[in-house]
Structures are given as structure tokens and as C-alpha cells.
């Protein structure tokens, strides 16, 4: 849930920035590239933040 939320926010930010600065076909291409990059980066960040799946120890 948290991963999906962060991914969506970062993707939306990337798309808004690129669409505000570019035009037509270039805008479409760069939007796609930005989306892919932001998704990958955000997934990596989420994995780092959350850590590897496994048991939790509550002392």
C-alpha cells in the first residue's frame, strides 16, 4: 500500500513537470521515459525504506 502510494505520487510529479515544460511528441516520449524512471527509482526507494520481507521482532 505504502509502496503504491509513494510510486503514484512520484510518477505524478514527474509527469506534471515534464508536461509543463515540453510539447507534443517530445512531451509524450519524455513522459513515458520519466514514468519508467520514476517508477524504478521509487520502487528501489520503497524497498530500501521497508527492507527485505521477513519476520518482525518486537522487543
Amino acid at each position, binding site marked *: 500500500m505504502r509502496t503504491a502510494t509513494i510510486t503514484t505520487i512520484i510518477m505524478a510529479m514527474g509527469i506534471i513537470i515534464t508536461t509543463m515544460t515540453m510539447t507534443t511528441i517530445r512531451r509524450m516520449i519524455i513522459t513515458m521515459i520519466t514514468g519508467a524512471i520514476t517508477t524504478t527509482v521509487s520502487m528501489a526507494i520503497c524497498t530500501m525504506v521497508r527492507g527485505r*520481507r*521477513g*519476520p*518482525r*521482532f*518486537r*522487543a
Partner: protein
Amino acid sequence: MSQTRLIQLEADILGKNNGYAQANCAQFARDGMFVLNLVSSPGSGKTTLLCKTLEALKDTLDLAVIEGDQQTSADADRIRATGVPAIQVNTGKGCHLDAHMVGHAVESLKPAKGSVLLIENVGNLVCPAGFDLGEAHKVAILSVTEGEDKPLKYPDMFAASDLVLLNKVDLLPHLDFDIEEAEANVRRVNPRARVLRVSARSGEGMEAWMQWLKGGAMMASATLPATAPLAAE
């Protein structure tokens, strides 16, 4: 996946777990610890039984508890309220504790040498039977509200247990549970298992259970070398 491949995978998982269990077992023996793995279905009264046991024994024995549940630290909180140190292991999607988890929990908990470590496994009568944690004994808890045929339905768990506690016997007058048949079913699956009738709520049979526990703790701590600091004094 072929059946052959499936069997191989299971053997590999249990083999890895057994390696960790052996390491735990060696550590427990070195530290003179008496370690029990409490297993049962959910709702059998493990935590209540444990709390009553800890309250009765905390002044005479060094005790520590590892609590296993999929989520929440409710059980560990109940244990800590008795004054005994406890660590909660949330297994997430897992349906049992394994030896690797227990090893890490022991590192965090740091139980004293010669202590009694009680591991309350995830409520489940199937998977925990196959996963050795390095404990001295598995103790199965069967409450009289569950049905006397449980040992026949889940034979692996009762076959792997050295002690079976028939819990909540104070409720017997209100139930159709045939306790003689339940004991006979346990013995059909595991003739060596000792069966004790207990009630954590009324205290019935608790003395026998605690005597058994104290006996085991005494035997385990006897393997420790003579207490060097005391001898030096």
C-alpha cells in the same frame, strides 16, 4: 511442478531449518537452558497458561519467553505484564516459527544461563510439527473445547510432542468432551507422551505441570560447569 521437484524443495527447506535448529540446540546446551516449544491450535489457552506459569515460577527460576504470532504484540504485552522478559516475533505471512527466527530472537532477548526459555509458537497444529527450533521438548496444548479427535486428525503434532496438556478442564462439566477418549487418542498417536490435565483458570493440575518444568530446568542447568564466580568467592 513435478512431485519429485516438490519433495526435493521441502527437504531442502527442512534441511536448512534443521541446521539452524542444531546451532540453537548447541547454544542452549552450552548455556544450560531448558527450552520448550509450546504448540497448539489458536484459542487453546497457551498464553493464559503461560502467564499463570510465569507468575508462579518467576521468583524461583530465570524465565524468558518468545512469542510467535502473525501480527500484533498483544501476547508479548501480556507476558511482559507478569514481569518476565519477552520478545514478539511477527511472522507476517508465515504460519510457524522457524529455527532461524528463534536464533535471532534469542540474540535480542539474551536469556540468562541456566534459564527456562518458553517459545509460544503460532497457533497451528500442522506446520510447527515439522520445524525443529532446537528445543528440548515440544509441549502440545489441547483444550477440552476443541474435540477429543484432534490427536487423530493432526497426528504429526502429537507424535512430535513429549508432553500433552489437556487444558480448560474446569469447563468439562459444561461440555460433551470425553477426556478419557482424548487421552486414549493421544496414546494411539504417541504412546510415549505424558498427558496432564490442567486448568490455567482454576489452577487444577498446574502443580504437576510446574513440577515437570522445574525438573527439566534442573536437569538442563546441571550441565553447566560449577558456578565459577560463586566458587571464587
